[in-house]
């Protein structure tokens, strides 16, 4: 952390009179922002006017809808680890951000959103394009603030970045009235924020809880680790790896944590939750010590809570005290940043192996392969499956791509089967389950990680929710590979209707446009594949293509994602069919 003394020379620099809009852009540059996803409009025009002067220093990506803008910001943040920045105008521009804010809040994604607002003297008059954005966005932001005077901008912006990225990250919104953007004022140098007195992002680690946790772990016969996105958000992948490798404990992940250690790590026993792997779900109810790290026991992970891991002592490592005891009572709460707590714990745990216990996971895995996975990934006849598309993709990318999935069956298949060699490679809307996320988030991810291959993996329903972002691809020239797995249904809803509503397929039949023509209209190359023998070459063509590419794969209409923990059931009641 920088001290006040170190910042002093900057403060001495000459003060200049500039507009609020310019102060904002300069502040963004000082915060290290290189990319902004945005859409202009009346109430944010002074900011855009200033941006024009700085267009060589920061990349502004003009999206096609503010929802696309914010999902792109999320994709950028998730791929890069930096704060995503989004611009929108007042009223409809700002309200179009709400879905993305809710998504970013529940998935702890650091964002700074800047919205224009009507002149301060018009607030509350039902002025043109006035919406009460501070109130509307309050429940879906970590912090928000309305700026009505230019002099507030530097401090508010610095605070926004600090709050967005510190502690448990989240989206922050600054609503800036037009008069403040226009106002000329004397702007000092931008001073980053390191402290807000009412805000304790990071607790001081308490050693006695580390000790208690280590004792429990050292006595455990069947310890089991569950990890979530906290490992990624805390950049604690190495610390985590060291911990599991020393303790020899099998570890399973939530979809938000996927990729924090490679898919093929011998202690990585798979995915948790409703469509997770067989072993991790069943054995949750058999382990004696459950070590939850940076995860929040979402209901999609726990299934029925009163039958969840009742036999186990629970150690919960989390940076957010409100998560401790929220859903599952912790025997030992290790409140802290896992980047700090994990090494302390690693030091105290005994180096061990748990061969018999690990074997149980492997036995369940073998059963799952035989009953589910083999047919899903390597079918030899019949129509194509989503799983084999992912499997072929894995083989061609060798697991080095960033996979950005949408929501529904495609998401569960992507999360279950994507081979991930690197962290920050599985980008998906976990907590909110926002259809339409994949395409714009993939665009953002590519800007955040330009050297990596980025693949959007979406269903025929979800892609149509934000398909206009193909225009963003066209204009920015960003290179995103888009796979649409088309089952001609809103597949996941159809699956539930089949299993729980006697096949009453109520409005899940969805028609698609000719995606290849649509892509062509946007100047994007594309291909449609209906036959298995053409799949691999089409994927190869897509990956080899310079620039974006849209690949539509026709898959079985009525395939189901299994295993499945039916809603209201315990994780150990997971069904293989």
């Amino acid at each position, binding site marked *: 952390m920088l001290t006040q003394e170190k910042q002093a020379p900057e403060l001495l620099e000459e003060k200049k009179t500039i507009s609020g809009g310019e102060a904002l852009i300069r502040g963004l540059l000082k915060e290290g922002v290189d990319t902004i996803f945005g859409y202009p409009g009346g109430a944010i025009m002074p900011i855009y006017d200033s941006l024009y002067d700085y267009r060589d220093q920061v990349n502004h990506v003009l999206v096609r809808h503010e929802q696309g803008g914010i999902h792109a910001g999320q994709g950028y943040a998730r791929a890069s680890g930096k704060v995503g920045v989004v611009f929108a105008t007042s009223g409809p521009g700002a309200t179009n951000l709400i879905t993305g804010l809710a998504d970013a809040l529940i998935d702890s994604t650091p964002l700074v959103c800047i919205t224009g607002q009507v002149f301060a003297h018009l607030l509350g008059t039902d002025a043109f394009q006035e919406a009460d954005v501070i109130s509307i966005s309050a429940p879906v932001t970590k912090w928000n603030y309305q700026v009505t005077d230019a002099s507030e901008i530097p401090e508010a912006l610095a605070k926004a970045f600090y709050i967005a990225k510190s502690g448990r990250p989240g989206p922050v919104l600054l609503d800036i009235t037009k008069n403040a953007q226009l106002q000329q004022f004397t702007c000092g140098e931008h001073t980053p924020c390191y402290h807000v007195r*009412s805000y304790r992002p990071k607790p001081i680690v308490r050693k006695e809880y580390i000790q208690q946790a280590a004792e429990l772990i050292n006595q455990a016969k069947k310890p089991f680790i569950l990890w979530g996105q906290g490992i990624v958000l805390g950049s604690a992948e190495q610390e985590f790896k060291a911990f599991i490798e020393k303790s020899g404990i099998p570890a399973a992940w939530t979809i938000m944590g996927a990729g924090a250690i490679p898919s093929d790590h011998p202690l990585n026993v798979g995915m948790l939750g409703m469509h997770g792997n067989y072993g991790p779900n069943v054995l949750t109810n058999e382990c004696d010590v459950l070590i939850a790290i940076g995860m929040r026991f979402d209901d999609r992970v726990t299934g029925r809570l009163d039958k969840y891991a009742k036999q186990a002592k629970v150690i919960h490592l989390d940076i957010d005290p409100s998560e401790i005891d929220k859903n599952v009572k912790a025997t030992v709460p290790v409140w802290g940043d896992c980047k700090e707590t994990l090494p302390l714990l690693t030091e105290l745990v005994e180096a061990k192996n748990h061969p018999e216990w690990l074997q149980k996971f492997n036995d369940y895995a073998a059963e799952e392969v035989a009953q589910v996975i083999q047919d899903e990934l390597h079918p030899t006849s019949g129509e194509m499956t989503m799983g084999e598309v992912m499997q072929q993709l894995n083989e061609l990318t060798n697991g080095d791509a960033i996979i950005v999935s949408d929501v529904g069956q495609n998401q569960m298949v992507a999360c279950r089967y994507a081979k991930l060699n690197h962290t920050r490679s599985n980008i998906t809307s976990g907590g909110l389950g926002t259809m339409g996320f994949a395409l714009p988030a993939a665009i953002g991810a590519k800007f955040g990680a330009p050297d990596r291959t980025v693949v959007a993996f979406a269903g025929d329903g979800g892609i149509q929710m934000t398909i206009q972002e193909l225009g963003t691809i066209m204009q920015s020239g960003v290179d995103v590979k888009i796979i649409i797995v088309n089952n001609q249904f809103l597949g996941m809803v159809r699956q539930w209707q089949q299993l729980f509503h006697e096949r009453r397929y109520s409005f899940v039949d969805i028609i698609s446009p000719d995606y290849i023509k649509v892509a062509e209209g946007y100047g994007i190359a594309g291909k449609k594949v209906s036959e298995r023998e053409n799949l691999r070459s089409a994927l190869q063509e897509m990956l080899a293509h310079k620039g974006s590419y849209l690949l539509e794969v026709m898959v079985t209409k009525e395939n189901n994602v299994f295993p499945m923990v039916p809603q209201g059931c315990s994780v150990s009641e997971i069904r293989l069919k």
Partner: protein
Amino acid sequence: MNQNHIDRQEFNITVYTEHHVGLLNRIATIFSRRKMNIESLNTSPSEIEGIHRFNIVINETEDVIRKLTRQIEKQVEVLKVYYHTNEDVIWQEMALYKVPTDVIAEKALVERLLRENGARAVVIRKDYTVFETTGHREETDNLIKVLQPYGLIEFVRSARIAIIKGSEGFNRKLREFERAEPGSETLENEYLNSREKIFSM
């Protein structure tokens, strides 16, 4: 959130916050989101300039209250949150009663009435008189019953304010927030000390 009706009781939630626009809304939605009613809400400046104190009364189980207080404390502009049962606090509500002066002077034994209910007259005009009393809900309720026959014109009751019996060092703790830089080992992990009791971090 509405199970275990039997275990429900009144809890007094004390929240220290920055004095910021929109914070009331953020705190209110923590309850409304869970379809919970706030029984009483008082917000006013604390003894320290710039820091406000909320007193919120909620009828719930302790388990729920504990989770809620953590959600409140999670708000960036909230400094500290405590919760207490009614036994842990000394609390008061103030009430004002407006009655026609002629009736009250003529029919009631004003003197006795005031004494019995610990009330006092705040304003006496020709047309009306305003009485004031402070106390628990039953006490202020009681005076309504007494005054109703005398043509009660208007009644108003304040939110509850509560002072915590075991709040040693509160003021000192609060003063620490005035410091510009983060303090050392203080405040932060107290909650882990008394996990099941008072929430605080």
